[in-house]
């Protein structure tokens, strides 16, 4: 028997977890269970990121996505899950239409992914044993210095590799504006004083 390829083993483990719970999110109609399945699916996706060598992105996936965004979503579920809204059934006609469209989209995407020759598995030569930590290189890239592209000899290619400082600034301001807007939108309604007229 051929020796086990451990990359493949862990890939199958995380991929099956992510895929099965992604399908479970779509299938169940109970919104509390959907939130729980989504947590498991996104954690398995973080495992896939670690496996592909993206250690910083995987850590951010767990910290920001699972620890921040999904906790926000679960708070939303807890604030609105009352009586009839916990489990809202979809009509079967909509299921048929959705599965038809989704199935054909999935067939197209998978045939495209499998069909490209450059994306097939390749036998790479043995990697150097030291871990290639990406955090500092990513941080320098966000600050505008691409320390991973210093040996790029092509002048025209190097011009486009000036880093991501400007998108980083834009996304920071965007996040600030969005959070202020969200806090404003979700503010509690002003309470009517007894003497005041009620607006129609």
């Amino acid at each position: 028997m051929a020796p086990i390829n451990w990359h493949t083993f862990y890939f199958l483990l995380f991929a099956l977890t992510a895929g099965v719970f992604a399908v479970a999110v779509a299938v169940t109609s109970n919104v509390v269970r959907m939130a729980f399945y989504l947590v498991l699916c996104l954690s398995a996706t973080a495992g896939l990121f670690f496996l592909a060598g993206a250690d910083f992105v995987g850590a951010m996936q767990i910290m920001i996505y699972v620890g921040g965004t999904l906790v926000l979503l679960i708070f939303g579920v807890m604030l609105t899950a009352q009586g009839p809204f916990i489990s809202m059934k979809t009509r079967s006609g909509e299921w048929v239409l959705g599965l038809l469209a989704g199935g054909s989209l999935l067939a197209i995407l998978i045939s495209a992914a499998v069909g490209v020759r450059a994306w097939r598995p390749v036998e790479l030569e043995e990697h150097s044993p030291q871990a290639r930590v990406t955090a500092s290189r990513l941080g320098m890239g966000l600050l505008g210095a691409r320390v991973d592209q210093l040996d790029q000899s092509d002048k025209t290619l190097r011009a486009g590799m000036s880093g991501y400082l400007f998108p980083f600034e834009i996304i920071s301001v965007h996040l600030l504006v969005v959070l202020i807007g969200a806090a404003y939108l979700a503010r509690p309604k002003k309470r009517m004083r007894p003497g005041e007229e009620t607006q129609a």
Partner: protein
Amino acid sequence: MNLLAEPVGVAHYMVIGAIMFVTGAVCMATKRNALGVLMGIELVLNGANVNFVALGSEYLRPAQDGLGLDGQLIALFVIVLAAAEAAVALAITLNFYNNHMTVDVDQADELKG
């Protein structure tokens, strides 16, 4: 053929990304709960992120024809944008719930002519 002895390529990651993308799209299309639609959006964004990271990985294809660090940087931007989008969508959903006492997106038809 021993499944566990075969190497993994970008195509494998893309298949799992496609599955997450499609389940997210189906989720967005069929859920009646506004928060369910939001969870579908999160699944779609994560499916795209899996593809970005897989194309940038140096463990899956030779480093010179991959995306390199750009894939991971774009994945980080997507994660931040998803956080922003979830905050706003949740605020809108809570506002809708306060005003209409429901989270059924089929009831949000006041603008219908």
